Every structure is written in structure tokens, then in C-alpha cells.
């Protein structure tokens, strides 16, 4: 479960070493945009050591490496792969070939380091017009791809439009990514909300992302993590309803009925599937029905 993903600048020890206590379901150690070219080597070693020596139990570790169009990405993989992050985040994923190139290199390095092949996944950061158009091919390019992630700042620059809080300029990309990810059977994550002082705007943006089908949302600020976690968690009412759905289905089965109504609405397979997902998530969060 990954409701929130918090970016941590790869060359900032103060944030890196405290990353595991900021409430995010996952942290993204950033070796790309947050690190100046002259500091890439230092950040790489610092992130490697943070992963090696700090305890991040309960918090997934994702590393944003540099893009495959840069001279840095192979050394990034060399440094962090032995620390077994859950995911490598590939920025500016534009084509399936970008993924296959990274996949092949990771496989080669896993063999080199004596790691089980395929244990580290890939998350593709879609932040170019080309990437949006190729979203499904990227998501389906390798079994390592576990998720797509929309990066709206670079995308709007590529689209030659202004990034706004209303986000109408990324409506197409958002829905396109959700559809592509679901078609490929992977997760999908929404772009960060970049005004760190606008909590209401943050919440509205997260609610929209949830309504569109995103699994969670990234953040560049620790103060947004709690809001994201709350928005992407099931509410007590949703948990109670999910249990009632499953009870209704069991009752229908006992009565030999193919369908049954709950609160005046027919319960069908998609509703049952949604209820199961809600309960799975509630259980993962330690929210039982008794807490409702």
C-alpha cells in the first residue's frame, strides 16, 4: 500500500536520515532534479549509505535515478541496487525501450551482485508528451514495472502550457495514465501538489486524484503527507459499507440467489471487488470494523 510518496533530496542528510519518521508510506530518495550535476557522486554515496545503515521498516524505499538520456543512471543503479530498494523510479520514461534498457541493466547488475533477478521493481515517471502517448506500452514493457507516476511540472513544460492549481492542463494525462496503468495491471500515482503552504488546495487536488482512480499521490513536503494519507484511506463509512456488501453477498449465496440488493442498490461484481479492496486496505492500515 502506497498512499503517499515523499520526495527526499538525495544530498540532504538532515531530511534523508529523518525520512522514515515523516509518516509517508514510501520515500523517494531523489538523485535527479534535487541534486546538482557536480554533486551526483556525493548524493549517490549518501543515499546508498542511508539505505544501508538506516532502518526504514514500514516505509518503502524508492530511488529516483537519473534518466537514461544522462551519463549518470548506470552509476546510480550500481550504487543503490545492492541495497534492494522496493522500486527504481525512472524519470522521463518516454518509450518502452527506455524501460527495457533499464530492466536489462538491472538484471545484469543483479547477477553481478548475486541478487535474485527481478526483485527490485520499476516505477515509470511519465512527464513528457511522448511518455503520456506511450503510457500503456511503458507500463507493459517489463514485469518489473509496478507503477506509473505522473510528473506534471516537466509535462506541462513539454506541452508548452502553464501549470495551474486548477490542473485542467493535465486532465488528459491524468485519465490517460489511470487507464493505461489499469490496462497493464499496475498501480498509478499522481503528481505532487507544489504549493506547500496551501493545505486546502492540496486536499482538493488529492481528492480529485483519488476520484480519478489514482492509488496515491507524491509530495515534495512532509506537511502534505498526512493530508494525502487521509484522503487515500478508506473512511469509517466506506469500511462499514464494504463489510455490509460482503455480508449481503454471503447471504445471497446462502439463499441461492445470484444477486442481492443493499440499501436499495443491486450488489454486483464490481461493487464486491471494490468492497474487497476497501477491506484489504483497511486491514493493512489496522482499521478493523470494530474501529468504525
Amino acid at each position, binding site marked *: 500500500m502506497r498512499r503517499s510518496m515523499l520526495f527526499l533530496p538525495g544530498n540532504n*542528510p*538532515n531530511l534523508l536520515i529523518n525520512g522514515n519518521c515523516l509518516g509517508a508510506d514510501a520515500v523517494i530518495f531523489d538523485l535527479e532534479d534535487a541534486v546538482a550535476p557536480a554533486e551526483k*557522486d*556525493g548524493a549517490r554515496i*549518501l543515499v546508498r*549509505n*542511508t539505505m544501508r*545503515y538506516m532502518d526504514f521498516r514500514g516505509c518503502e524505499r524508492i530511488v529516483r535515478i537519473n534518466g537514461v538520456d544522462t551519463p549518470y543512471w548506470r552509476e546510480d543503479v550500481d550504487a543503490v541496487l545492492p541495497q534492494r530498494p522496493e522500486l527504481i523510479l525512472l524519470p522521463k520514461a518516454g518509450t518502452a525501450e527506455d524501460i527495457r534498457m533499464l530492466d536489462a541493466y538491472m538484471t545484469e547488475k543483479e547477477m553481478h551482485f548475486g541478487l535474485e533477478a527481478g526483485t527490485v521493481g520499476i516505477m515509470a515517471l511519465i512527464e513528457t508528451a511522448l511518455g503520456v502517448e506511450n503510457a500503456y506500452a511503458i507500463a507493459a514493457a517489463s514485469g518489473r514495472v509496478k507503477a506509473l507516476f505522473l510528473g506534471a511540472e516537466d509535462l506541462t513544460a513539454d506541452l508548452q502550457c502553464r501549470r495551474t492549481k486548477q490542473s485542467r492542463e493535465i486532465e488528459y494525462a491524468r485519465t490517460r495514465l489511470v487507464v493505461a496503468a489499469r490496462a497493464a495491471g499496475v498501480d498509478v500515482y499522481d503528481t505532487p501538489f507544489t504549493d506547500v503552504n496551501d493545505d486546502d488546495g492540496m486536499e482538493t487536488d488529492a481528492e480529485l486524484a483519488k476520484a480519478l482512480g489514482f492509488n496515491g499521490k507524491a509530495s515534495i513536503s512532509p506537511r502534505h503527507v498526512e493530508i494525502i494519507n487521509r484522503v487515500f484511506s478508506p473512511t469509517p463509512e466506506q469500511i462499514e459499507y464494504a463489510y455490509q456488501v460482503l455480508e449481503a453477498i454471503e447471504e445471497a449465496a446462502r439463499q441461492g440467489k445470484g444477486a442481492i440488493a443493499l440499501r436499495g442498490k443491486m450488489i454486483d461484481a464490481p461493487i464486491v471487488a471494490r468492497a474487497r479492496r476497501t477491506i484489504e486496505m483497511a486491514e493493512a492500515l489496522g482499521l478493523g470494523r470494530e474501529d468504525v
Partner: protein
Amino acid sequence: MEIIKRASAGTLESSDAYVQIEPHDGGLLLELESVVLAQFGDAIEAVVRDVADELGVKNVYIRIVDRGALDCVLRARVETALLRGRGNP
């Protein structure tokens, strides 16, 4: 590994360390400035010598201004500085 040029790594920010190195004959010479020198000076020196040993660096002058860096941070900054100062990377 031979150190052939001056190099530095890290910052003076809180939880970080600023490491400067330069070529030096006659072993590892360490100059350390830290707010926790009295309590952790020996431990910091041990970390620095450990990193230098791992990289096979025998002769180097290292100056460190420590701003409360954890071991993993100090190790990273010393390693980065030494790698930046090496010959034939």
C-alpha cells in the same frame, strides 16, 4: 588508492559534515572540528580511518568540520572526498 589532488565533499549544514582532503606524505593526518569532539572524537576518527582503509588510502591529510553527522553520513562524505581526490578513477 593514491590521493593526488585537493578535494572536498559535504556541507556545513546541520546533520552533515564538510570534508577536505589533500595529498600528504607519512600516513593519515586527521584534523577534526566538531561540537561533539569530546564525546565522539575517537568514534569519528575510527570511522574516518575505516573508510580510508576500505579504499586503500594510506597517505592523506583530512580536515573535517562536523555538524552532527551520523556515521552513515560521515562515511559517505569521507568516501566522496577521497574518491574525488584520487588519481586514475
